């Protein structure tokens, strides 16, 4: 077991700089999810950690030691690939035991450890099959087993669930979480799916354009996003952004929206300077109805109603913008109807204008 640390890590492919100086500390036994849009350099970062790709500058530390010059073999990390990368010519058992075989472990030990891991992952009845004879979910589990059987210092996952269907994805997500409680090895988990990251990880790292945008627990990221990108990336349905003008004094921030309506919120130190800003409203924080004693009342026309069963997703024109609203009370509303909504002043986010997801 070992922690992982990045120090000013940079990576360029030719002239294109993909990672622009990352600093990150992952504690021993921690489960960290790395999220970001496709192409932001997540796989590249993981490959550098694994030793498959060389960093352009900076240091990678595993267990407190700089491993920049160590081969993948010497780093004792295991990786689950997005494509699973199972060896087609080997059986499940051979796939899982391959690392042990390469490390010249005795046959009996290999057999015992493969068996043990197969039991954890419910793969025992598949041990003699070839990967081509397995379903997607089974292949995924073999890929996990191959990593697990080695007893590595660090686990790396590169979008391991992205090739599965929605139902299996949820199932495997739970299984990975359960596994982490059993095997408390440091895990770095790459995904572009923020729900996966939020549900699995102790801490989430948001990566965009080669820069770490924010690091924090799922709740921290949801409550206090550092910028509009993080705010838009975390949470589902995504946060609404409304352009407005900020005017603030020492304890209140007053935002005038494009249609002239005004919202107020308590002034917070991370608020931008007065002027053009982006107002962030989470769909689940916009309530139908007048509210009580709050000054943050707005009205708008309902453009779309999407029932999802437990909630209704509404599109309401607010402050000149089409805005998503989640209604947990399943209020009876009609298309085209004008409704009143209200927002708790504490739930209002204010960001600098001009940079969203």
């Amino acid at each position, binding site marked *: 077991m070992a922690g992982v640390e990045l120090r000013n890590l940079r990576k360029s492919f030719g002239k294109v700089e993909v990672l622009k100086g990352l600093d990150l500390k992952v504690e021993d036994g921690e489960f960290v999810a790395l999220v970001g849009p496709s192409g932001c350099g997540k796989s590249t970062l993981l490959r550098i950690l694994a030793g498959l790709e060389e960093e352009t500058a900076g240091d990678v530390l595993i267990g407190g030691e700089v491993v920049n010059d160590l081969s993948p*073999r010497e780093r004792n990390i295991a990786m689950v690939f997005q494509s699973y990368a199972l060896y087609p010519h080997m059986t499940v058992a051979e796939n899982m035991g391959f690392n042990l075989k390469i490390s010249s472990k005795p046959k009996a030990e290999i057999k015992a450890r493969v068996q043990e891991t197969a039991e954890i992952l419910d793969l025992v009845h598949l041990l003699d099959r070839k990967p081509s004879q397995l379903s997607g979910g089974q292949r995924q589990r073999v890929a996990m087993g191959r990593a697990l059987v080695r007893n590595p210092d660090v686990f790396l996952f590169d979008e391991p669930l992205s090739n599965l269907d929605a139902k299996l994805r949820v199932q495997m997500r739970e299984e990975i979480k359960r596994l982490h409680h059993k095997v408390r090895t440091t895990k770095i988990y790459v995904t572009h799916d923020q729900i996966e990251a939020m549900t699995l990880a102790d801490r989430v790292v948001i990566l965009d354009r080669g820069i770490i945008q924010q690091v924090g627990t799922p709740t921290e990221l949801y409550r206090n996003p550092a910028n509009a990108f993080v705010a838009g990336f975390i949470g589902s349905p995504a946060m609404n952004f409304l352009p407005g003008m900020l005017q603030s004094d020492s304890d209140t921030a007053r935002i005038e929206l494009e249609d002239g309506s005004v919202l107020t919120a308590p002034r917070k130190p991370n608020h931008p300077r007065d002027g053009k800003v982006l107002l962030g409203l989470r769909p689940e924080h916009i309530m139908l109805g007048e509210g009580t004693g709050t000054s943050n009342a707005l009205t708008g026309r309902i453009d779309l109603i999407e029932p999802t069963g437990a909630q209704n997703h509404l599109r309401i024109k607010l402050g000149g913008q089409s805005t998503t609203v989640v209604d947990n009370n399943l209020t009876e509303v009609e298309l085209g109807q004008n409704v009143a909504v209200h927002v708790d002043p504490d739930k209002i986010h204010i960001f600098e204008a001009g940079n969203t997801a």
Partner: protein
Amino acid sequence: MSITGSQIDGVAVATAPAARKRRLSKSLKKRLIPWLFISPFIILFLTFTLFPMLFSVYLSVHEWNPVAGLSSMEYVGLANYQLTLTDPWLWQSLYNTVWLAVVSGVPQHLLAIPVAYLLVTGLRGGLRHFYTAFMFIPYITSTVAVSLIFFSIYSANSGILNQMLLGLSDMPVFSWFFSWVPDVMPIRWLTSSDLLKPSIAMVVIWKYTGFNIVVYSAGFLTVSRDLYDAARVDGCNRWQQFWHVALPMIRPFVFFAVTLTIIGNLQLFEEPFVLTQAQSGGVAQAGLTASYYLYLVGWQWLEMGSAAAISWILFLFIAIATSVHFYFNGRKGLGEDR
């Protein structure tokens, strides 16, 4: 519409014979047209494949000197086969064929597989294409031309090979290894029964290794980078990546290339023919391959019947060799174990 149609039908049935004839010819036409479309193949197949095959079966049970015309054909039963099977030259030629097939076949693959692997894993696209194309040149060069050039290279007194060996025996460091050279000069590469077969094998290896490199390059290119990455994470060094991952992955390509080598090498003709100057298989028939022998019997000795019998024996021989190869390597080779 349908009413008028059936009325016309009714009339047609009533005015019997002429219309029935017309309808018959129509359906005949319908059945003939598909045959017409595939007739080019059928005609070519009958003329150039089936007829010669049947004719050679027919020939193999006759005695025939083609110079004396078709009328000189004489039925002899299985005598051609009996005669051939007791001819020591046949057995000599089969031995030579197998020897050459193995000695010139195995190194082709032992060379081509690692070279292709290095080309694919070590070089970028452009440079790799250049090298691959370069090594493919021997394959597309006329075998006769290649053999003629090697004939002069191998020449005992003026050949560049012997000159080079002599030169090396004079050079400072190499002289230690090549000091024996002057004592055995001139080395008769093509006119001693010991050296003839290896000399022929060298030419064959030189000519066909490039082709196998192309086949194996294509094979290694099908192995996804993820598999190599997975192997590296699993702790493989470059050799282990090759041995445990890349090589098993290209098994179908090895199978294909080895099959072609078996079939090709058992029919070896031009290289030994040119290198022995068409002189009955060279010194002590050391360069007499089965095809070469077949040629001698047919065109030198003008015994077409025996030649036909030999060709069937050779066919059987190749078929057995290939079947054995398929039996032992087929399942894995064709990737059916995946």
